[in-house]
C-alpha cells in the first residue's frame, strides 16, 4: 500500500497496534472510535472471542477529509496478541506505515512485552522492513494501576525503548494518552512525506 497516492490524491496511513495479549490494543481503538464523529469513521470491525480476546484483528477506518487537497484516511488495525496467532499478525503487519507498540505497564507482564517486541521485529524483518526506518512509537498502557503494580515510564523506556522512539504513558480505558499516541505515530508517518517516501 502506498502512503501517498498522487493520482487519487489520497494519503492513506495504515497504523498497526501491536503488543502482547491483553495489553489494551483493542481498547485504544475503541476509545478512538468513541471520539471520532460518526461521519468520519467507518464501521469498526472486531472479531473477538467470548472472552473479548481479539481472535483475528480489529479494523477502524477514519476519514480525515481533504487536507491541502489530499483526501486523508487512516486505517487503524490491531493484531491478536496471543503468541499462537503469529500468522495473523504477519498478515496484518503487511504494508503498515507505522506501528504503535502497546506495552502492558504491569511488572508481571514485563517478559510478555519483551517477547512481543521481539516478535514484532522478527516479523518486520521477515517482510523485509527495516525496523530503523519504520515509524514506531511506544505506549505504556495501564499507568492508572497502583504504582506498586506498574513499572515507571523510565523503567519501561530503559527496557523497551532502545531505539529512543517517542513513548507515551497511557490509560487506554479512560482515554488518557490514547490520542497523544495516535498523534505521535501520525506525525512520524506523515513526516515521511518529505523524506521522499511519497510515490505514485
Amino acid at each position, binding site marked *: 500500500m502506498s502512503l501517498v497516492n*498522487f493520482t487519487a490524491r489520497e494519503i492513506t496511513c495504515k497504523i498497526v497496534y501491536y503488543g502482547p495479549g491483553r495489553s489494551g490494543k483493542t481498547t485504544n481503538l475503541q*476509545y478512538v472510535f468513541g*471520539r471520532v464523529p460518526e461521519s468520519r469513521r467507518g464501521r469498526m470491525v472486531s472479531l473477538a472471542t467470548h472472552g473479548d480476546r481479539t481472535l483475528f484483528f480489529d479494523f477502524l477506518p477514519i476519514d480525515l*477529509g481533504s487536507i491541502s487537497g489530499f483526501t486523508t484516511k487512516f486505517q487503524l488495525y490491531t493484531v491478536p496478541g496471543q503468541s499462537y496467532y503469529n500468522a495473523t499478525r504477519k498478515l496484518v503487519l503487511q504494508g503498515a506505515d507505522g506501528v504503535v507498540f502497546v506495552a502492558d505497564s504491569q511488572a508481571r507482564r514485563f517478559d510478555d512485552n519483551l517477547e512481543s517486541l521481539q516478535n514484532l521485529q522478527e516479523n518486520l524483518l521477515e517482510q523485509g522492513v527495516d525496523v530503523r526506518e519504520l515509524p514506531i512509537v511506544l505506549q505504556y498502557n495501564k499507568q492508572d494501576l497502583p504504582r506498586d503494580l506498574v513499572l515507571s515510564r523510565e523503567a519501561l523506556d530503559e527496557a523497551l525503548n532502545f531505539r529512543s522512539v517517542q513513548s507515551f504513558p497511557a490509560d487506554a480505558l479512560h482515554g*488518557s494518552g490514547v490520542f497523544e499516541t495516535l498523534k505521535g505515530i*501520525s506525525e512520524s508517518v506523515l513526516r515521511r512525506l518529505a523524506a521522499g517516501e511519497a510515490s505514485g
Partner: protein
Amino acid sequence: MTGALNPQFRLEGLVVGAANRLAVTAARAVAESPGAVYNPLFVYARPGLGKTHLLNAIGHAARAIDSRVAVEYLTLDEFVEAFHAAIAAGQGDSYRRRFLEVGVLLIDDVQFLAGRREMQAELLRVVDAMQAVGRQIVLTSDRPPSEIESLDDRLVRRFGGGLVIDIAAPDYETRVAILRRRAEERAVRFEAGVVEAVAELEIDNVRELIGALNRLVAGQAAGDAPLTPAEARALIAKTLPARAPVVTRAEPVAAAEPASGGVDEFADFLQEVSATVTQQVESWRARIAEAILRWEGEGYRVARLQALLDADVTADPADELRAFEADVGRLRELQDELEAMAPDLAGATALRDPGNLGAAEAFVERARQGAAPPPAPSPHWNLAEFIETASNRMAVRAARSVTEEPGTRYNPLVITGASGNGKTHLLHGIGNALAAGGITVACIGAAEFVDELISAIDRDGVGLWRARYRHAGALLLDDVHLIAGKERTQEELFVLFNLMLDTGRQMVFTSAVPLAELAGVEDRLRTRLEGGLVVDLPEPDRELRERAIERLLSARLEAVDPEFAAYVAGRPAESMRASLGLVQRVLNAAETKQVHPTAALAREVLEGPVQRAPRKAVPVRPSGVAPSSALGVRSREKMVWEWPDIGARIIEEWR
C-alpha cells in the same frame, strides 16, 4: 510631505518563511535593479503581515546598493494630501514632474484608492510617467488590485503588467523564528518550549504575534519564576479571539491525568494531522512558487505551475518542475531555430508557454513550411526553348543576361507587353534557369500573391508569409499590374523589394500595362520598378509566329505540311496565343473530319468554303468599291482582317 523610511524595517530584519519568500525575493530583485525587473511591484497582504516593513526594506536596500538612488516612501493618504496641496497652489504639473526625479517610489496602502477616481487618474499618470523613464514603483495594499473597489481597469492592468504578489500568514516554523528573533532582540530568555507553545497558537498576524511576545515578556517579568510552556500558552490563549482554536503538538501526558474531558480530542488530532500534512505540502508549494517567480521573470507563461498551486495539490513537485524545465528547454531550442529562420517571429508568444508545447511545435513547423521554397516556376517553360527573333530579341537577351548574372546586371528586370506574347513563359523560363543555378526561386502571379497575403492576415500568419518570401533567392512576380489598389500588398512588396535589392537577389516582374500607365500603384514602388531594366515583349513578328507554329505542329503531327505553318503565320493575330489558337482550330477540324491537316484545310477552316455558285453582277459604285451582299461575304475574317486582300480578290473576280 513624505514619511522617512523606518530605520527598523530592513530586509535583514524580515524572517523569511514559505509565506513571504516570494515577496522578499521580488523585493530584493527590485532593490538590486530598480525599474529593471518587476515594475511596478504590487505587494498585498492582510494587515499585520509585513507589507510596510517590506516596502521600507526595499527603500533601504536600494539605497544601500546605490546611495545615489532617490527613494521616496509615502502612504496613499500622503500622496493624496500632497496632490491636493499642489493643485491648490496651482502646481499640479510640478507635482508630477518631481516623481520623475525619484528612483524608487514606495506607496503604502493603495487600497484607499477605492472609489477615488481623480486620484486613480493621477496615480495612473505618475505610474506611466515613471515607467516611461525606467523608475521603480512599489505599491502595497491589503487586497489584490482586482479587488480594490472600482479601481480603474487601466491601473489594474498596469499593476498586473509588473508583478502582483501576496504575503500569506506565517506558518508554524516562521512563527517560531519570528518569536525567537524578537526575543533575542529584546534580550529576553524563555524556558525551552515556551516560544514553541505560543507559536502553536494559530496567531496568523505578525503584529499580534509580537503582541503575544510582549505579553510573555510582561508575564515573565511579573512572576517569580520563568514561565512554563503551559503557563505561556494559557497566558496568550485567553487573550486570543475565539476564532483561533488551540493546536497542541504531540506531547506525552501524564497517565495519571484524567482523559481530556470536554476537549474534542478528535478535532485536536485532526488539526495536528492537518498541520503536518499542510506543512509537507507547503514545502512543495514554496518550491513551485520559487519556480514560478524564476520562469515568469524570464518571460515564460507559468499557468501550468500556477495551476498546481491553485489546485492546492501537487504531484511530486520535483517531477513537475523537471518536466516544466524540460519544456522550457525545448521552447528555447525552437526559439533558436526560429531565430535563424525568421528572426521577426522569434519573440512570438507561442514560444513562451511551456504549458502548450504542442502549439509552439506547430508554430515552428508552420514557420519551417513557410521558410521552405515558395511557389516554384512551372517546369513546363524554359528559357532555352523560348524562340528569339527580331521582335523579342531585347527581352530574351535581357532574360538570359539575368540568369547569367542574377542580381547584378538588371535588377529588377521588368517585362511589359500585351497579354499572350509570352511574358509568363519568359518569366518562368528565367525562374527555371535561376533554379537550375541553385537559387531558391519564388515565382508567383500577383493575384495569388495578394490572395496569399489576405489569407495570412486572416490566420494571423503574416510573419510566416513574409518569411517565406524573404528567404527566397529570387523573386519573380507575374502580372505585377494586378497589385494596383492593393495597398497592403504594395507595402509588403515594397519592403520585400528593398530587402532583395539590398541583398543582391534577382527580381523579375511582368506587367501587361506599361509602367508609365500603371495607375493605383504607389510611386515609390513604380519608380523602383522603373529603376531596373524595363523591356517590352511586343506583338510577335511573322517569323516568330511561324517558328512557334512549326514547333507546335511538329510536336502534334508526324508529317507537317510546310505550307500549313506559313499560311497560319501569315494570318493576322493579335498575339502569339491567338496565332496558336488558329492552329488549334484547324487541328480540331482535321480531327473531326478525320483528315490530315493541311494548308488547304486551314484556309477552308479559317476563311470558309470556296464559293462555286455563279455570282450576280455587282454594280460598281462610283467609288470603285463593290458593295457587299448577304452572299458576298461568307467569312467574317474577310471583313475584319483581310480587307485589302479581299478587295483585291473581289475586284479580280469581277473583272
